């Protein structure tokens, strides 16, 4: 196996798209914060992006098979660290998600995602049978369920939910008896209403209610959705211009540089900007899926598809929330939302997708 792989084999289109989306993100962070006390968020984001590219480079170089070999270690490490956040973690906005100091901290659950993607890839490639057996499924669900419940208890429902598409896409690709699917649907149908009352916290329930009818709660989550829709709608076709959106600049939008960054973007860049940005996300995801198709082995396919699924889920839930078509869950928009852990985690995932691509012609 050659030690050096040609730079030509890197996914340059993907890198260009990532750079472009990040640039839009930085611009929007700047615009949304330039006269607030978050005004330094845009250059912090630049630093994170630089760190992300380095992380991506490393994730590209180390053979993904090596990483797959380390899944048990990584998994245990993840669960232990998640456990540690309960003890050592710092509380902010009523939940305990971060580890570190007030200035330097990481959101562990963002990195657990990557471990779970690797876990599913490893698990599926090691299957003996053609189709996924119920016992395998339960085992896998258990493996994912443990960190998921830990994250839910932080409480961070949004990030916990991002673990589900990892499992779903793996199970879907591995093949599965449709009867199982029906059975699971029935169970979900029973469990969901019960968990609404037993598991969900008040604020989570409020978010669900306000998703169904935003006007019910015009000052809480419903307020956020209403203000977001006003921001998006007032952007119209061409947008109101950078730093010109009244919803963004007047702080009517909640966290316009984080979870609602796309709302701010849509206000200031309009429908045309939205099409360009979503178009880039689409091509980026398609590139990852193509990497899955050209992967040298099943593990590579699972890996890329897991990454594609997580990112697609992020885009769907975050952007859907912005236009009122998804409930407010508070998960960031990959590559655009301000925030270090998410940026580095996404870059790591993209690095893994590149990793698979680099090794497609092996043998």
């Amino acid at each position, binding site marked *: 196996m050659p030690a050096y792989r040609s730079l030509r084999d890197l996914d340059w289109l993907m890198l260009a798209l990532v750079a472009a989306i990040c640039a839009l993100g930085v611009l929007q962070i700047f615009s949304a914060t330039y006269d607030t006390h978050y005004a330094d968020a845009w250059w912090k984001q630049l630093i994170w992006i630089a760190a992300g590219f380095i992380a991506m480079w490393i994730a590209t170089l180390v053979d993904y098979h090596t990483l797959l070999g380390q899944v048990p270690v990584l998994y245990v490490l993840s669960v232990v660290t998640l456990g540690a956040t309960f003890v050592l973690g710092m509380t902010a906005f009523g939940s305990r998600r971060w580890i570190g100091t007030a200035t330097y901290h990481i959101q562990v659950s963002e990195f657990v995602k990557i471990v779970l993607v690797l876990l599913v890839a490893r698990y599926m490639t090691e299957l003996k049978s053609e189709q996924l057996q119920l016992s395998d499924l339960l085992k896998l669900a258990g493996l994912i369920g443990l960190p998921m419940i830990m994250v839910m208890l932080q409480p961070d429902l949004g990030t916990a939910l991002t673990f589900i598409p990892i499992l779903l896409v793996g199970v879907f690709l591995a093949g599965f008896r449709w009867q199982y699917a029906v059975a699971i649907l029935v169970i979900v149908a029973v469990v969901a209403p019960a968990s609404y009352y037993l598991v969900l916290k008040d604020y989570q329930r409020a978010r669900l209610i306000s998703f169904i009818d935003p006007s019910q709660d015009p000052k809480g989550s419903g307020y956020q959705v209403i203000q977001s829709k006003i921001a998006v709608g007032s*952007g119209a076709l061409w947008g109101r211009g950078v730093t010109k959106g009244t919803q963004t600049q007047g702080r009517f939008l909640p966290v316009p540089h984080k979870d609602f960054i796309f709302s701010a973007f849509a206000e200031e860049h309009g429908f045309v900007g939205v099409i360009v940005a979503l178009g880039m996300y689409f091509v980026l995801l398609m590139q990852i899926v193509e990497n899955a198709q050209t992967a040298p082995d099943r593990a590579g396919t699972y890996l890329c598809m897991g990454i594609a699924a997580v990112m697609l889920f992020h885009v769907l839930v975050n952007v859907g929330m912005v236009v009122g078509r998804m409930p407010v869950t508070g998960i960031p928009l990959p590559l655009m939302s301000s925030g270090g852990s998410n940026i580095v985690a996404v870059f790591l995932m993209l690095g893994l997708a590149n990793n698979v691509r680099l090794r497609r012609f092996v043998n």
Partner: protein
Amino acid sequence: MKLRADREHQQIADSQLLRDDSKFASGKIAFFQYLMVGIFLFLITGFWDLQVRNPEVYQERAMRNSIKSIPVLAPRGKILDRDGRVIVDNHSSFSLFLSRENLKMEHLKPIAEGLNLDYDSLVARVRRFQSRGAPTYQPIPIKEELTPAELSFVESHKDADTFPELEVIHVQHRLYPRSGFAAHVVGYVGEVSEAELDTPEFARFHQGDVIGKEGLEREYNDILTGTDGQRRVEVDSFGNERRVLSDDKEAIPGKPLQTTLDLDLQAVAELAMENRRGAVVALDPRTGEVLAMVSRPAFDPNLFAGRIRSKDWKELVDNPDHPLMNRAIQAQQAPGSTFKPIMALAALETGAIDDNFHVNCPGGATFYGRFFKCHAKHGGVDLHRGIVQSCDTFFYNVGNRMDIDDIAHYAEMVGYGHKTGVDLPHEAEGVVPSRRWKIRNFREKWYPGENISVSVGQGATTVTPIQMAAAIGGIAIGGMWFQPHLTKDTDTVHLMPARRGEVNLENIQKVISGMYGVVNEGGTGGRARIPGIDVCGKTGSAQLVSNDAIKAGFKLTDNMKDNAWFVGFAPRQAPEIVVAALFENGVHGQFAAPIVRDVLKAYFDKKARLSQAAPQIASLPPLFHPPAAPTTAVSAPVRDNP
């Protein structure tokens, strides 16, 4: 390192042998791709709905979110005296308004509690504004002259999540001279009432507007009232202003009103009437310009400057001395002996008497079987002495020789029985009795015996101080009557042309000669004498209770004592000023004479001063005391009006 990685890689590959079937899931991946397309279309349709299909709705809502219209209240024009000195000024204060664009009824309760307002009347007020259909950008004024404590309450509650409707506006508040100086002339402003809005005079105003309600403030609303402007600002969700939009409507300040009043004379007249009831009017008979106008007791117009408190209002209305009444134009009182010059003129003109007409005064005379008293035993009296000594017996006889309608004719000629047309609201017209008047009001015919009382200014005759000043002033300049007026700007007041009476100048000279004697020849008005100035005048002591009643044992209380009048002008040859003073319950006209003398003296002193030296402005006692302005310790984001 490389070897180890390769080895592990080899282990996995060996155990599963999966390299050859990387296309195992191509169908499912294709499905995933379609799913992606579906999801992106789903998201894009969301943006399509909001941004392309009906962005106007959201643009409108974004605007309502962030754009606030703040009225810029135009300051009223100042009221100046004839030399341009300020009588009525403005001062800055903060008023609280409720912006109607984002008003929520359920906020009224906590707002009322926070600012110690009556909740029910606040709600009623808001409803009234809403029912009037005033434009929504017009906010509702709810409190004036905010204190620092109230300002900080507003400051801490006006963010988007609490009470975004709260709006503090910097306003120019009316500032009137203190202790009721010229209060009745300038009048006062107040918030336009529901009833007033229905009248044509105030139809152009809106709920909440401050308008002139009385006096010059009311008469010249059109000049003094400016045009309110509007500032449109972009606010953030905390209600802080982010930037001012360019589509401002500038406020146009009201124009200043220059009056004919002379602050110096006004001050002297005010001082002369201190602690008295009555009125003083000083006119320039050559033009009709009002130089001074005082009515006492007065009120403090500053009480009205915003919304008057009901307690203050009740006090003013219930006061038996009627301080709100402008006696100078509204007190209709019997002129008493001040009517005698007019009687004399009428008698001479109609030929009822001639120069040789003499009467013996034994202290009264009997007409139609009834004795009419004179205030002294004057002996032989001719016209000149009749006026100088104010002999009633003489004028009883004059009246007895005349027809009431002739008396009425001359009384009306000098301006009695009609409004003078002075540019103030609510002027009274007084009464000039005549046959027609008697029929119309009592359905009775006139008895000649009634002439006797009329001839000495008693009976039904009533006049106002301004009528008296105008009437005597017109006689003084030879039978020409100019419409009294208060504005210097004669374009804005429609002056009637001067009325020229068809009178013989010789007869006028005889009357004036008598009035000169009143002051300078030991007559009743000696107290009006000014050395070096030829002052002419006439006293009047008008009874409020008839002699019969007094004889019947009626006990006179203080407020039934005779009214004292004095009307005087100077100089005799070319009159420049005429002053009428009514001193209610002053007992005798001679006690009103010093009031007139003070004003006349002030006039001529000033004239002498001005002709001697370069014109200088007389120093005035401090008239204004601005209310304590809100301290600047509170950082209110209120900007100056342009």
